[in-house]
């Protein structure tokens, strides 16, 4: 059941009506849990069973960890949790890729190979990381209270964020099930706005600029085509994933639940560290809290070298999380290399900041360099494998510089302007609900344009790029 389908509209609408008709928080939670499990069931019965069983295992481990007094026992329960979660993820996501015979073993215990392949697109990578935040946050003393199984299961299966995140932390979600949720017109308006702006990014921008990406990023075209294709892909993947994330947040908000803002004008970042504070914030902050911080703390006696090692561990982990192909590891390496340069040039940057800090050209130049580095990463992220990257780069070695295939340049330019406008509107206020502070005439015009464009371009069949992870 996709967000942009009439089936989801009917399901979500019915659940929403019932949710606000029920007066008590406890019954609202029960309804949300039942609705969320029904949503999971609509994807796959086996997935529903796996979700509940793995949540139960995690919850038991978290209880043991919380009850443990000695550090050695606390560490043991934490490592069992990490091992089980990552093993579980690796089995379903990667094992069938490396060892096809495992499909036979899985079939013998009731999971057909098709089931294994189906599990990846329906959020396994996302809810596994989300699930782990319970034990991790208890270990790091961020969750101190007793956590009930049903509130934990609801947090993991909560249907707006199940499929592709945002990967919300248990410490942020759990308290929300304990507070009374009161319907407010403002919350409802904000939810509808997020859904509308998310659908606009997906339907109007991502799905249209995808045609430019397909036309431009073909082997043997030209260097200019690759550059334009990477810019087009930068627009597509942002609009696709930010669009999805906004819709997920909007749907959650309709139910009175707040979920982390996943994108904060990432292409306005003036360095890679800044970029990762704005792009896929839920995942990057997860990796920061649970991979980079512990690793860099453990390696701090090595000085800057320790920071560099922790950076590489973090971004190679991110590459592995995205997929098993070597291209994802190279993508992670591109970002790790960029951040290594950033770390090693700290003193030089400090010197030049003092010299040129007030120059008007410095910030746009740094934004452009950062965007180009991110696009270099997209060269590997977009490709199915390294062979495809080699095919694209053959145009460089062949000396094909300026030839362009047939593509609709107007779509690329208009998409670029639309993403620029969305970044600008956000940067001006640092508020995703900037629309509500505009004059009536501007608000009306924006609503009209959004509505007309959505009606013009709506197509229910398109999937989201991040579903594959």
């Amino acid at each position, binding site marked *: 059941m996709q967000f942009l389908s009439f089936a989801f509209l009917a399901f979500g609408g019915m659940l929403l009506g019932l949710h606000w008709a029920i007066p008590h928080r406890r019954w609202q939670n029960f309804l949300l849990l039942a609705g969320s499990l029904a949503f999971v069931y609509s994807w796959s019965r086996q997935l529903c069973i796996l979700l509940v069983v793995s949540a139960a295992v995690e919850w038991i481990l978290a209880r043991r960890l919380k009850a443990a007094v000695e550090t050695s026992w606390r560490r043991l329960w934490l490592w069992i949790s990490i091992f089980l979660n990552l093993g579980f993820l690796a089995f379903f996501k990667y094992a069938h890729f490396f060892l096809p015979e495992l499909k036979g073993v899985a079939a013998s215990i009731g999971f057909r190979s098709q089931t294994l392949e189906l599990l990846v697109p329906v959020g396994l990578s996302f809810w596994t990381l989300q699930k782990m935040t319970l034990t991790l946050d208890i*270990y*790091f*003393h*961020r969750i101190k209270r007793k956590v009930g199984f049903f509130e934990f299961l609801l947090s993991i299966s909560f249907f707006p964020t199940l499929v592709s995140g945002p990967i919300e932390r248990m410490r942020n979600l759990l308290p929300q099930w304990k507070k009374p949720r009161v319907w407010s017109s403002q919350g409802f308006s904000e939810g509808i706005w997020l859904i509308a702006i998310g659908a606009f990014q997906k339907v109007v921008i991502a799905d249209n600029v995808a045609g430019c990406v397909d036309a431009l990023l073909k082997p043997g075209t030209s260097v200019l085509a690759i550059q334009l294709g990477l810019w087009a892909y930068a627009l597509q993947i942002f609009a696709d994933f930010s669009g999805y994330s906004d819709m997920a947040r909007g749907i959650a908000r309709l139910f009175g639940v707040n979920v982390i803002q996943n994108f904060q004008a990432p292409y306005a970042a003036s360095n890679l*560290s800044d970029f990762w*504070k704005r792009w896929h914030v839920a995942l990057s902050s997860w990796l*920061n*809290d649970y991979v*980079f*911080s*512990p690793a*860099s*703390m*453990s390696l*701090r006696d090595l*000085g800057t070298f*320790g*920071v560099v090692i*922790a950076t590489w561990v973090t971004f190679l982990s991110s590459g592995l999380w995205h997929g098993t192909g070597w291209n994802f590891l190279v993508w992670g390496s591109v970002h790790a290399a960029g*951040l290594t340069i*950033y*770390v090693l040039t700290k003193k030089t940057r*400090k010197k030049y*900041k003092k010299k040129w800090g007030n120059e008007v050209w410095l910030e746009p130049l740094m934004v452009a360099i950062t965007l180009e580095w991110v696009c270099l990463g997209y060269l590997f992220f977009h490709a199915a494998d390294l062979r495809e990257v080699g095919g694209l780069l053959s145009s460089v070695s062949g000396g094909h510089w300026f030839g362009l295939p047939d593509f609709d340049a107007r779509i690329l330019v208009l998409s670029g302007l639309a993403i620029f406008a969305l970044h600008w509107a956000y940067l001006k206020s640092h508020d995703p609900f900037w629309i509500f502070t505009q004059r009536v005439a501007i608000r009306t015009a924006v609503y009209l344009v959004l509505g007309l464009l959505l009606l013009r371009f709506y197509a229910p069949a398109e999937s989201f790029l991040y579903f594959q992870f």
Partner: protein
Amino acid sequence: MTRGELLTTLLEISRDVLDEDDLTFTDETLFENIEEWDSLNHIHMVVRMEKVFGIRFDTSELQSVVKVGDLLDIVARLKG
């Protein structure tokens, strides 16, 4: 060291490591609101604090720190 002296020393370290001469904060300031205090600078801050205060942080004890006051509590405890 008094609480005020700890705060003053932390501020001096932060201004130097984060390269922000005008930086100010109080016990209640959230780290997420100190723009330059990102994860890369955080580890430089940890190393400098350990050196200046003569303490050693446990790997996991800074994970739950949210505001400046939380950090000062840990520093004060470790300094005894």
